[in-house]
């Protein structure tokens, strides 16, 4: 029955495409690719037919027509005669602002709550556990609406601050006003400022660069660099002689003095909000929609981050701490030199994917009227121009680029910690 023969050199037959494992994978891939192309082609064909029937084409000219609506929170100057494109940029910036603020707040809150959950104080750890369970098991959209409603009911309207019989007053030496429209805080002003550089003329991507800000950043950067050099030198001396010179006052001076000098030179002072007309004027206005979105996203995401932090800390075995103690390392240093570097490797990847979620969830801004990119490009612009396909495409592209950049950071980090492994 079984005679062993040399495998014959077969000539190629069509059926080998299916049955010969050498060719089969190529066949399957080809078929899959063909199927994909056909699917995409079919979708595009349908779209074209449907758009023709509606008398619309795909074009992006509408982006450069006047938007004719106003946006309340704008980081760049904008008025209703500007283009839809500029409105979209304003929206994008608003998305980025709330995402960045949210990530910072969520991290701080999450770490605090995660650590407190491991506290040996029963009440505190119970409450933190309760916090985590409450926040992550209720939809974030509800939290956004909740906080919006809380701010509406909790704080008074500006008119309550007015007159002799005011029922509300400003907090913190009359510098901060909590109103149900938002919170007014002092703003930094420069009386001898260097002015702004205006870029890109009158186009849709024009923006102003504040020279004051740049000067500040530059001086601060230089000071830090100098302080770093001093520390390096101290390290060197310690390595050579075993004695570490005290340098903290020198470093502090290097950082603080030039910055203060610069601020004085520019005439730095704070602009305080004051009630004028219908609203508070002056100061920086954090709108209620921004705060509601920011807080809700941070509180919601913090519940997840707390769990990640807790898991990260618990993943480091107590043996590590004990070994470090045996080596005589001080307890403060144990955390920074032994536990954290190891815990971070566990913590950071899920942390970044939570940042990603937070950024995507910021698109719920429309629920409270925060004008992010979903509110401008995907909201009013789409609605007023009837260009759904183009607007949604652009919007998806924006979110996709944000997500992919965050993933790229994550991959880069994963690669960099991988190198330290055996």
């Amino acid at each position: 029955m079984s005679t062993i023969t040399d495998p014959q050199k077969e000539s190629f037959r069509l059926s080998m495409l299916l049955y010969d494992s050498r060719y089969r994978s190529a066949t399957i891939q080809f078929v899959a690719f063909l199927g994909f192309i056909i699917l995409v082609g079919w979708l595009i064909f349908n779209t074209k037919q449907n758009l023709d029937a509606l008398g619309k084409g795909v074009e992006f000219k509408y982006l450069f027509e006047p938007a004719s609506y106003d946006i309340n929170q704008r980081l760049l100057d904008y008025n209703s005669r500007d283009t839809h494109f500029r409105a979209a940029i304003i929206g994008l910036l608003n998305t980025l602002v709330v995402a960045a603020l949210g990530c910072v707040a969520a991290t701080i809150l999450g770490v605090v709550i995660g650590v407190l959950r491991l506290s040996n104080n029963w009440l505190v750890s119970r409450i933190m556990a309760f916090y985590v369970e409450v926040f992550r098991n209720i939809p974030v959209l509800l939290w956004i609406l909740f906080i919006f409603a809380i701010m509406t009911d909790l704080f008074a309207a500006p008119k309550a601050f007015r007159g002799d019989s005011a029922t509300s007053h400003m907090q913190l030496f009359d510098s901060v006003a909590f109103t149900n429209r938002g919170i007014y805080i002092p703003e930094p002003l420069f009386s001898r400022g260097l002015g702004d550089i205006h870029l890109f003329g009158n186009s849709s991507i024009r923006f102003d660069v504040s020279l004051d800000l740049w000067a500040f950043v530059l001086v601060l950067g230089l000071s830090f660099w100098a302080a770093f050099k001093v520390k390096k030198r101290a390290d060197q001396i310690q390595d050579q002689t075993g004695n570490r010179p005290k340098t903290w006052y020198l470093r502090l001076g290097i950082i603080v003095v030039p910055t203060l000098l610069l601020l004085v030179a520019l005439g730095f002072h704070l602009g305080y909000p004051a009630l004028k007309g219908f609203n508070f004027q002056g100061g920086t206005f954090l709108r209620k929609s921004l705060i509601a979105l920011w807080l809700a996203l941070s509180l919601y995401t913090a519940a997840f981050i707390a769990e990640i932090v807790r898991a990260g800390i618990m993943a480091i075995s107590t043996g590590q701490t004990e070994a470090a103690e045996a080596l005589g390392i001080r307890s403060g240093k144990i955390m920074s030199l032994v536990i954290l570097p190891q815990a971070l490797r566990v913590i950071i990847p899920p942390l970044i994917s939570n940042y990603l979620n937070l950024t995507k969830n910021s698109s719920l801004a429309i629920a409270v009227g925060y004008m992010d990119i979903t509110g401008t490009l995907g909201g009013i612009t789409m609605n007023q121009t009837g260009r759904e396909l183009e607007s949604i495409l652009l919007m998806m592209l924006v979110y996709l680029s944000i997500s992919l950049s965050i993933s790229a950071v994550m991959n880069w980090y994963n690669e960099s910690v991988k190198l330290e492994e055996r």
Partner: protein
Amino acid sequence: MTKSILFGALTVTALAAGAAAAGTLDDVKARGKLNCGVSTGLVGFAAPDANGKWGGFDVSLCRSVAAAVLGDADAVEFVPTTGKTRFTALASGEIDMLARNTTWTFSRDVDLKFTFVGVNYYDGQGFIAPKDLGVSSAKDLDGATVCIQTGTTTELNLADFFRVNNISYEPVPIETNAEAIQQFLAGACDVYTTDASGLAASRATFENPGDYALLPEIISKEPLGPLVRHGDDEWGDVVRWTLYALLTAEELGVTSANLSEMAAGTDNPEINRLLGTEGTLGEMLGLDAGWAQAAIAVGGNYGEVFAKNIGEETPIGLARGLNAQWTEGGLMYSPPFR
């Protein structure tokens, strides 16, 4: 999931004039239900009650059309739409008509390819402000915070108004009317702007309606009316003339009380034509002879519908104003039934 091969025929029918290939009317008849787009909730105009039964001024028009076409005022599926989803719902064929206080504008009519079949409410954008704000005109609103409902033309009107008058303001866009009212009452905005009818409707539900006043400026024309897809003239006619039937009924004194009496035949030939006892108007529309009678039977004539849902007797308390019959100084003017 009805398949209508003629959904795409909109531009074609416009080109091949006269030979309109109708679809919607047949679809509705085959389906036995009218799909009518309404607001997700606006007091007096459209809101579901605890049993999920929809009622209101716009809803009533849907019911009249259903009665005219299918002989049954309850043969309506109400599809709640937001300011953002309403047009796509109509364009995609998900709904047969949209009765959701939608402003008739050039671009919506021409560019978005819809047909406004008439105006069932002449409105204008106004402002409401608390009396103790001490504002007597919208031009005093420099620096004020203004609540607006996003996704509507009010946003654009507002921007134009403040720009023309060269005063600044802070817009607070809000998704729904209910939420906007909440914000306004809490003082989170100084004034709220939307269609004056909506303002009056909302004011009616305030705890102390007397503390709030509408500002005198009406900053835009807002003819609100039902709309259908562009090109399907046969269906457009059905909705249009159902609306006109209600208007004409009021003009001719046909009410829900005397409807059956009048339907038996009167001396007035126009009433007879309207109610189908004379002539073949219904047949021309592709409907039964008693179509208008059925439409009027739902909630009475235009005046009765107005009075019942948003009129002065209701908490909303809107005066007829521009919406009175032309014979009484209003703009409601139906072409003759002839």
